[in-house]
C-alpha cells in the first residue's frame, strides 16, 4: 500500500505529475468535484493543527468526498491507551485514506505498516511534514516557473524546522540549486542534513548569521518560526525567538521577483507590512497546500484501487 511518510517516498517524476494535477485542478475545479464521491478521509489529529487539518478536509470536500476523524488525542481512543497500530487497523475498516498528525516521531510510519489503506503523514513531531513540502514545491513552481537554477535562502530555526529539512531534501534533486542557510549559531542545520543531502548531491551552500548580506542573491526566501514546542528549555526559546524579523527595510536589496515563503503560523518573524508586498507568497502557499493535498489524495486512492 503506497503511503506518504517522507517527501523522499515520492520520486521527482511523481512530484511533477502531482504538480501537473494540482495545476489542472486550479484551472478546472469542476472536473475534480466528484472524483472522490463515496470516499472517506479519516483525519487522525493527535495534536491540534488548525491549518493542516482544515486543508485536508477542504481538499477532500472539494473532491466530493467525506471526512471523519478527531482533532485532539483526548477525544480519541489513544486517551484510553490504544496503540497507533490498533488505531490504524480500526480506521482501515471505516475510511479509504488516513491523514495523521501525531506528536511522536515515526507514528504515521507505524500506522502505515498496520493500515490496509494509504496513510499520509500530516506532521510527526519535529520529524517530517511532507504535505507542507508539497505546498512549498507547488508555490516555487508557480512563482518561479520551475525548480532548476534557483538560489534558495532558509532563515530562522534551521535545526528543529522539519519543513526546512524536507524542502532541502526535495530541492536537492533538481539541478543548479544553491542553498543559503541563515540562522543563529544555536539553530544551524544539523550536520547530517549538510552531509547526507547537500554535500552528497554536490549542492553549493553557504551558512551565515546575516540575512541582509545575502538578500540580493536570493530567488526564494523561506522564513521559519522559532517554535516554542520544540524547546525543552524556555530560556533558550526566549533568547532565540526574535533572531530574525523580516520587514520592508530588509527587503530593500532583494530581487524584484523574490518569492517570500513561510510555512505559517508566523509569530513576528515577518512584519505584517510585508504582507502587501507582491513578493509575499505565504498565503498563496496555504492555498497551494490544499491543491497539492487534493492531488495527493487522488494519487494515493488511485494507486490503492490498482
Amino acid at each position, binding site marked *: 500500500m503506497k503511503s506518504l511518510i517522507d517527501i523522499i517516498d515520492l520520486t521527482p517524476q511523481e512530484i511533477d505529475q502531482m504538480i501537473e494535477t494540482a495545476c489542472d485542478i486550479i484551472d478546472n475545479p469542476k472536473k475534480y468535484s466528484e472524483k472522490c464521491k463515496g470516499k472517506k478521509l479519516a483525519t487522525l489529529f493527535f495534536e491540534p493543527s488548525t491549518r493542516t487539518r482544515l486543508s485536508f478536509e477542504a481538499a477532500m470536500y472539494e473532491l466530493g468526498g467525506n471526512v471523519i476523524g478527531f482533532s485532539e488525542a483526548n477525544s480519541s481512543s489513544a486517551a484510553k491507551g490504544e*496503540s*497507533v*497500530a490498533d488505531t490504524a487497523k480500526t480506521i482501515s475498516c471505516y475510511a479509504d485514506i488516513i491523514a495523521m498528525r501525531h506528536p511522536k*516521531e*515515526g*507514528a504515521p510510519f507505524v500506522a502505515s505498516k498496520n493500515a490496509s489503506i494509504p496513510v499520509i503523514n500530516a506532521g*510527526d513531531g519535529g520529524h517530517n511534514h511532507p504535505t507542507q513540502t508539497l505546498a512549498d514545491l507547488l508555490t516555487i513552481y508557480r512563482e518561479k516557473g520551475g525548480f532548476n537554477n534557483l538560489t534558495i535562502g532558509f532563515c530562522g530555526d534551521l535545526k528543529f524546522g522539519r519543513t526546512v529539512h524536507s524542502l532541502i531534501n526535495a530541492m536537492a534533486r533538481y539541478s543548479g540549486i544553491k542553498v543559503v542557510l541563515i540562522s543563529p549559531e544555536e539553530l544551524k542545520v544539523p550536520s547530517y542534513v549538510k552531509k547526507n543531502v547537500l554535500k552528497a548531491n554536490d549542492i553549493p551552500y553557504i551558512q551565515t548569521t546575516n540575512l541582509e548580506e545575502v538578500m540580493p542573491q536570493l530567488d526564494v526566501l523561506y522564513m521559519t518560526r522559532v517554535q516554542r514546542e520544540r524547546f525543552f528549555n524556555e530560556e533558550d526559546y526566549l533568547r532565540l525567538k526574535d533572531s530574525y524579523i523580516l520587514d520592508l527595510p530588509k527587503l530593500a536589496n532583494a530581487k524584484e521577483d523574490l518569492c517570500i515563503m513561510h510555512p505559517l503560523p508566523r509569530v513576528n518573524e515577518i512584519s505584517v507590512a510585508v504582507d502587501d508586498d507582491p513578493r509575499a507568497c505565504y498565503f498563496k502557499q496555504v492555498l497551494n497546500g490544499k491543491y497539492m493535498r487534493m492531488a495527493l489524495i487522488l494519487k494515493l486512492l488511485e494507486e490503492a484501487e490498482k
Partner: protein
Amino acid sequence: MNVDSIMNGIVIDHITAGLAFRLYNLLDLDKLDCPVAIIKNVNSRKMGKKDIIKIDSEIPINFDVVGFVDPNATINVIKDGVLVDKHSIGMPQKLTNVIKCKNPRCITSVEQEIEHVFVLTDKQEKVYRCLYCETKADI
C-alpha cells in the same frame, strides 16, 4: 595469563580493545550459566591490543550485535577442541531490538510493543539511525 582452551563453544576474537564488555552486555552473556571468559588487552600482532570472549557452550550468537559493536571481530565455532567454522561479520544493515532509541519524542518511547529498529545510513562513519524518527544511535 592462561585461560583454558574450550572444547565446545564460541570464541569471539579480534575485538577492538575495550569493546568486550559492551559486547558481553549486548549479547546478554551475563544470563548464561556456562563459563564465559573476557580476556582484555591481549597482545596482537595485527591490532596491537585486542579483547577476546570465550564461551564454553555452543550457544546461538546474534551476528548483528557483534557486527554493530565491532565489525572487525570474528566468531569462531569450536567443536571437540577443533575450529570448525570462522565468521567475519561486517556491519549489519539493520539492527532489531538490540539498542533503544533515546529520542523522547520517538514513537518507540511510548509504545512498548514496537520493535526498536536501527538502519545503517553511513557505513564510513558507522552511523545507525532509528527507523522511525531517524535519531542517530549512540555507538
